[in-house]
């Protein structure tokens, strides 16, 4: 198994690192989306879920253990995913130093051609999102421990916030539309027999997560949730 540490030496190995860390982050966004939809349970339900995430594992484990383990795993995944992406992009760009004067694509999807830009968009959005709803520095009137209030204030008092979130989750959906299938292909899990299954899961993930994430800013903007 120690040989797995040599994965970083080949382009395929770097991609495998991207695939595995991508799947970790994919799992996280699914749980995150389900959590977001708990806002429809009202202030008590939503805030109780948020509180649960901070104290889960207590008192069996010291305060914040599970929260921090998850945060560290996510942070490591992001670091590895982004590092491999930067290294691979440089290799890929170096592969064709002289561009074609005229170039067309036969079948490439928009999602596959814009994967990197989607990744960059998500990266910067996550920084903003953490300052907005976790740390609170980007949200005037932020109240620690009252996420229901923060979400409603965030989307109703800052008119540009909801469009920013919707664009960002559209980038996420597009990223996963190609990325989920691509990860299976890179890990060699995809075969001719599973092709349609994984393509289907990827499309469903992209569309489903976009819809799930975009729902909250939209309903707040429409004044359905107050």
């Amino acid at each position: 198994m120690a040989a797995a540490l040599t994965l970083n030496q080949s382009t395929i190995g770097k991609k495998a690192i991207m695939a595995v860390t991508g799947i970790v982050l994919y799992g996280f966004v699914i749980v995150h989306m389900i959590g977001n939809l708990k806002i429809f349970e009202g202030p008590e339900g939503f805030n109780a879920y948020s509180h649960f995430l901070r104290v889960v594992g207590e008192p069996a484990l010291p305060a914040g253990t599970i929260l921090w383990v998850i945060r560290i795993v996510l942070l490591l995944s992001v670091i590895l995913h982004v590092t491999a992406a930067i290294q691979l992009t440089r290799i890929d760009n170096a592969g064709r130093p002289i561009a074609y004067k005229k170039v067309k694509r036969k079948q490439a999807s928009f999602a596959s051609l814009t994967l990197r830009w989607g990744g960059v968009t998500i990266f910067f959005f996550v920084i903003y999102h953490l300052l907005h709803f976790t740390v609170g520095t980007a949200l005037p009137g932020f109240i620690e421990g009252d996420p229901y209030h923060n979400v409603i204030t965030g989307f109703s008092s800052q008119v540009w916030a909801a469009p920013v979130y919707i664009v960002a989750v559209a980038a996420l959906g597009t990223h996963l539309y190609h990325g989920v299938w691509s990860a299976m292909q890179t890990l060699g899990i995809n075969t001719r027999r599973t092709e349609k299954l994984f393509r289907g899961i990827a499309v469903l993930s992209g569309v489903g997560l976009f819809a799930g994430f975009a729902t909250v800013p939209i309903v707040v903007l429409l004044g359905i949730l107050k």
Partner: protein
Amino acid sequence: MKITINVWRQKGAQASGRLVKYQVDHVSPDMSFLEMLDILNQQLISKNEEPVAFDHDCREGICGSCGVMINGLAHGGQLATTTCQLHMRSFKDGDEITVEPWRAKAFPVIKDLVVDRGAFDKIIQSGGYISAGTGSAPDANSTPIAKENADLSFDAAQCIGCGACVAACPNASAMLFTSAKIAHLGLLPQGQPERKSRVLNMVATMDAAGFGGCTNIGECSAACPKEIGLHFIGRLNRDLLSATIAGGSSVD
């Protein structure tokens, strides 16, 4: 038919090149694309100009020499067609056609439309072989091979090494080519002894040659005149990752 053609002209490997516009009259729709280039060259020769250099050999779609970018698509973009099998009937009278050489760091231009595809030979040399006892031929059917594997191996073996996959890939990746070579031998019992070292060596050679990585976009397979499937790349990934994680050696 009258055709206007913009061809990449470059005197040598170190020279800088540019697109040059030529007019070709009297083009028959029954001509192949290469025959149209022959007419152009005849015109240039009679005017005492240097003819356009382009690679070609069999002109029947099986040697893999004749790949060029035609209007931004490898081999002109027709399904399962090499440049030599592309006919002028797929163009209209008065069309303007842009012809460029394959573009990749690993495929340097030698002259005009001719590129050096030697990097593919290096990949094959690093693992495209099997070890078999010499001497009298073994009895027929002494090594059973499942029909499905034989068919799949043959699908991969159809690769003619033309380089269209690299040319069409936005990353100039050689993954489809390498995957076809890996699968061609790896699907057969005779290819098993070197299976791990083959994939490790061929991928290392591929990476070192300066090809880009694969982002699973699929343009390679769509451009492939032999319709090599994207699933072979999945198989290559599977072989490479299992050989790496199992601690495979590059020497068997």
